[in-house]
């Protein structure tokens, strides 16, 4: 059996290139693949397009990657709290595509599901619907949204078995399971790696078919923070 477990993304350096679209799991820092992000910071790549609900927290996670200058565009739902992102956007050095959180989640799910696009009732009649096709279905107004796919997904889970089956922990699940389905290459960062058969089949959230590489996290939780060990 090919081993999906790697020490660092350096072992798969060839999958990373300039201008890639990277789906990054997490809601704030919870469920964010902090170790993988650290390792991406070491790579000589640029002009990344990130798809993520938000941009980590000040000084942590995707925020670091962004302040390092590797990010050209972010697609997500909430960047207001990130002063540097707001500033970079104002200065024209960062492109931001704002999508309601539920539309973002659905678009990613569709990307993984062979669905080209969908009609949602969210944002109809608002500024975020400008330029989007509108359609009435059974008397209700909807707007069209295209599916989102990525070149690479970097996600966070609790436990992986050696096949790549994943379980998650509490609200750290968030965007991770859907992003796992919607990218060509999926790299997951986990707390623990167990033998095949140790996870109860009924409780596995992400089947192994979606996972390409597994990395053991270097972070531990201390209270409300994640600390590099």
């Amino acid at each position, binding site marked *: 059996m090919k081993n999906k477990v790697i020490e660092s993304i350096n072992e798969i350096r060839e999958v990373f290139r300039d201008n890639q679209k990277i789906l990054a799991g997490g*809601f704030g820092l919870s469920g964010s693949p902090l170790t993988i992000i650290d390792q991406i910071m070491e790579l000589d790549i640029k002009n990344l397009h990130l798809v993520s609900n938000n941009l980590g927290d000040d000084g942590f996670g995707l925020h670091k990657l962004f302040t390092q200058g590797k990010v050209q565009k972010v697609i997500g739902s909430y960047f207001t709290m990130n002063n540097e992102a707001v500033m970079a956007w104002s200065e024209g050095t960062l492109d931001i595509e704002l999508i309601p959180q539920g539309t973002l989640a659905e678009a990613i799910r569709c990307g993984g599901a062979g669905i080209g696009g969908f009609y949602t009732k969210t944002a109809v009649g608002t500024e975020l619907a400008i330029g989007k096709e509108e359609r009435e279905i059974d008397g209700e107004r909807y707007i069209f949204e295209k599916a989102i796919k990525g070149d690479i997904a970097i996600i966070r889970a609790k436990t992986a078995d050696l096949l790549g089956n994943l379980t998650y922990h509490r609200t750290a699940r968030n965007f991770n399971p859907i992003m796992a389905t919607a990218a060509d290459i999926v790299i997951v960062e986990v707390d623990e790696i167990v033998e095949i058969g140790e996870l109860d089949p009924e409780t596995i959230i992400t089947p192994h078919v979606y996972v390409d590489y597994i990395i053991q996290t270097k972070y531990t939780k201390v209270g409300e923070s994640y600390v590099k060990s």
Partner: protein
Amino acid sequence: MSNLDVRNVIAKRIAQELKDRQVVNLGIGIPTLVISYLEDKEVYLQSENGLLGMGPPPLEDEIDADLVSAGKEPITLKKGATLFDSANSFVMIRGGHIDVAVLGVLQVSIKGEIANWAIPNQPILGVGGAMDLIAGAKKVICAGTLFTKNGEAKLVKELQYPISGLRQIDLFITEYAVFAFENGEVIIKEIIGDLTFEQLKERLNIPLRQEITNIYMN
């Protein structure tokens, strides 16, 4: 009243609107304060980052950075809680399965339209789940002080701020009154503060009708 008091008055009044067995999503700001006034009501709190059954904040030594609210505050799980991914969370929200969404608000129009996500002439860089909740929740209650810091009414003839969705909200609960929106009319359902109906009508300068009913009894 201090600002803190005002926010708690609004939160407490909103709590009275919530009924046993309702599934409720509380937005950031004043809506979050509602938790403190639920008493023993059996309300199920949904958090759009993937949780139904949010419990009170944890003790210091029980904090789990991976168990947080949509406001990214540490929380706990109540008995019977469930966890799900973001796509399924918005199946619940957009699909019409949330009984009540309680949302902060910047402006409310006399038609019951709301603006709660963006300020004109400023970069629009955050929306979160606000528009999904407005589009999907069975009932929307908005929470807010009736006037801005500059004394401008938030209840206006026409929104000056970007609209959050087509949907007409059900109630706007402020420190002065509970406003309902029915058939294009703004109706004061209850006076809470120290302004009379006539005084409110004068300060707001909008068509207003009073119809006091004990709307929050089950």
